[in-house]
């Protein structure tokens, strides 16, 4: 059957109801979250743009390689703390049809969105597609790192994708000034659109390796020539975090794992301040930051008997290095699960750009996933002792839980291995529904 290219306005509520019906039906049979969106995309291609145009405060696009999900979650919470009704694509279907699916879920029976602003997590390629459909009012661009290069080709290609997002944004583009590729996006912003930066203090900059230089000891960014940042992550000790906002030091507690997540909180705050302008209530924002919890698989903890198990999503060298740097290896029992399914990226070369030396004292209890042997070979090269290599994830997880002593457990895992481990954990203990 040929797909109708456009629909008369009379037909629109019908197609929307069809979409909502499919969403309901597919949710009942546990189908994929984007399927109803796919149907809407086919029968009413203007649906997403038309719905988003009703938002009084427009659309925020969050993109970049690392930390999109947690940053989006934080941004939503911060905006909600300011009294805004926020629409977001929480389910992780971060492409246009996922947005359509999330819209269907949110619309009431009369087709009203009932939100003030949308915050959408979009990966780089889908963000380009999305901004052609609907120019966002705000963009928060986090970083460009080596991730899934087998899909996008090269980092420079990824940067160009984000340049198109920056160029399409009509209100304010918020940029991470510490990432040279992101900083340079300022050149792509159209005249009349504002630019705001967030950044790191000098001492923190040294603790934050950039992607270009595992083998190059120059700091990620040189202080001179950096643009002034509205929000600077000044320092943090454990959860005690100091942010410099407009020249004043503000203190809060942020319960997130690792410097990169806490830095992303600075980005979420910078974006929120841009959206709220004079209406921003600072003390409420700081309080809300202390309530932020990790997105699923991004450092979330579950209890397993009297021990905790933490899932740490790893998908590129910079992220893995930062995760390793955030805790001492010997304090944890450690498992690593590396899958190479499409969603993980088929290429596992990036494991060679991570230094695993910090794991040597405690060793790694279990290595798992489709590429378990690649990972074991990698660890051997850094003289890290490996307890067991068990490619099958469920067996590996049980073996890890039973045979790794009484230390808290952490599992570094790629995307699809994390999903599989979460499913297995759900049979062993309580895991938050996603």
């Amino acid at each position: 059957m040929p797909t109708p290219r456009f629909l008369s306005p009379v037909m629109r509520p019908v197609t929307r109801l069809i979409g909502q019906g499919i969403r309901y039906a597919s949710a009942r049979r546990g189908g994929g979250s984007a399927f109803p969106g796919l149907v809407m995309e086919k029968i009413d291609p203007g649906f997403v743009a038309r719905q988003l145009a009703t938002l009084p405060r427009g659309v925020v696009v969050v993109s970049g390689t690392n930390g999109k999900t947690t940053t989006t979650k934080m941004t939503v919470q911060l905006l909600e703390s300011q009294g805004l009704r926020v629409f977001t694509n929480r389910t992780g279907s971060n492409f246009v049809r996922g947005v359509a699916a999330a819209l269907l879920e949110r619309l009431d029976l009369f087709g009203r969105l009932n939100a003030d602003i949308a915050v959408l997590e979009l990966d780089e390629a889908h963000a380009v597609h999305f901004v052609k459909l609907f120019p966002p009012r705000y963009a928060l661009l986090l970083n460009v790192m080596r991730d899934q290069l087998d899909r996008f080709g090269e980092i420079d290609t990824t940067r160009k994708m984000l340049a198109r997002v920056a160029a399409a944004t009509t209100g304010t583009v918020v940029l991470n000034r510490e990432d040279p590729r992101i900083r340079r996006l300022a050149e792509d912003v159209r005249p009349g659109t504002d630019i705001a930066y967030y950044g790191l203090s000098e001492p923190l900059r040294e603790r934050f390796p950039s992607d270009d230089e595992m083998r190059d000891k120059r700091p990620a960014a040189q202080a001179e020539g950096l643009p002034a940042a509205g929000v600077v992550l000044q320092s943090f000790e454990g959860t005690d975090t100091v942010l410099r906002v407009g020249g004043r030091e503000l203190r809060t507690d942020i319960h997130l794992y690792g410097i990169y997540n806490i830095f992303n909180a600075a980005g979420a705050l910078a974006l929120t301040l841009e959206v709220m302008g004079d209406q921003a209530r600072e003390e409420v924002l700081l309080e809300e930051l202390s309530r932020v919890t990790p997105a699923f698989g991004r450092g979330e903890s579950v209890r397993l008997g009297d021990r905790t198990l933490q899932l740490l999503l790893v998908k590129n060298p910079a992220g893995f290095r930062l995760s390793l740097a955030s805790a001492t290896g010997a304090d944890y029992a450690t498992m690593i699960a590396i899958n190479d399914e499409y969603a993980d990226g088929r290429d596992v070369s990036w494991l060679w750009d991570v230094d695993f030396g910090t794991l040597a004292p405690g060793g790694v209890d279990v290595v798992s996933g489709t590429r378990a042997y690649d990972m074991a070979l990698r660890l051997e090269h850094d003289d890290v002792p490996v307890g067991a290599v068990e490619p099958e994830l469920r067996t590996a997880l049980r073996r890890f839980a039973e045979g790794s002593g009484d230390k808290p457990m952490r599992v570094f895992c790629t995307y699809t291995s994390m999903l599989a481990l979460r499913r297995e954990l759900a049979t062993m203990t309580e895991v938050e529904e996603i």
Partner: protein
Amino acid sequence: MTRNERPLTILQLYPRDMNIYGDWGNVLSLSRRARRHGYAPRLVDYNPGDAFPEEVDILVGGGGQDSGQSVIQEDLHAIAPRLRRLAEDGAPMLVICGLYQLFGHDFTTVDGEVLRGIGIFDAHTVGGRERLIGNIVTESEEFGRIVGYENHSGLTTLGPDVQRLGTVVKGEGNNLEDDHEGARHRNVIGSYLHGSLLPKNPRISDFLVEAAARRRYGDFAPAEIDDSLAERAREVAAGRPR
């Protein structure tokens, strides 16, 4: 043991600008291999503008962004006479992806820009519209089965004065036309394979170490090395979807 005192200098060419997809894995693997065979590896980084070391036993160079290739272009031509002399003298080298292309005669980009290479390989590369991406397996008489991962848009064609490194069994290799992968001239190996290449293909590491040892010391006595992990990793990688 006196053999332990025999150093081998491994030069990493342009680690700052031509280092992507785990090129470090090759250097790490090679230096461990050299140590296992009883040599004392000495790692030297060479970046644009550095003094080129007097003695180089093995040279390893990696891939890079297109931007990286233009950054090193001028410096590469400045040291080209030394590299050519080393190559003709039998020094072993391994160049992957971006540097493999620049070790040929030239690289013509999609926009028609010509990047001159240093001509150690009789090979020409042209930029392609699509990227050749995925797991790849090739066969070589000398090294047996070679497994890795390719990700490139450049299409390389070998001339009559250079050998292929392997024949493609699965994947694309040098280009979309023939079944060649990589290049071989004397002891210089070029390849599109990363993954990283050497950890999962220890026979190539052994070849590089042996060629270096024979050139520097006139002999080589291989040690027995347990490669069972590498074997398992190779098997798995060769069986994964493209």
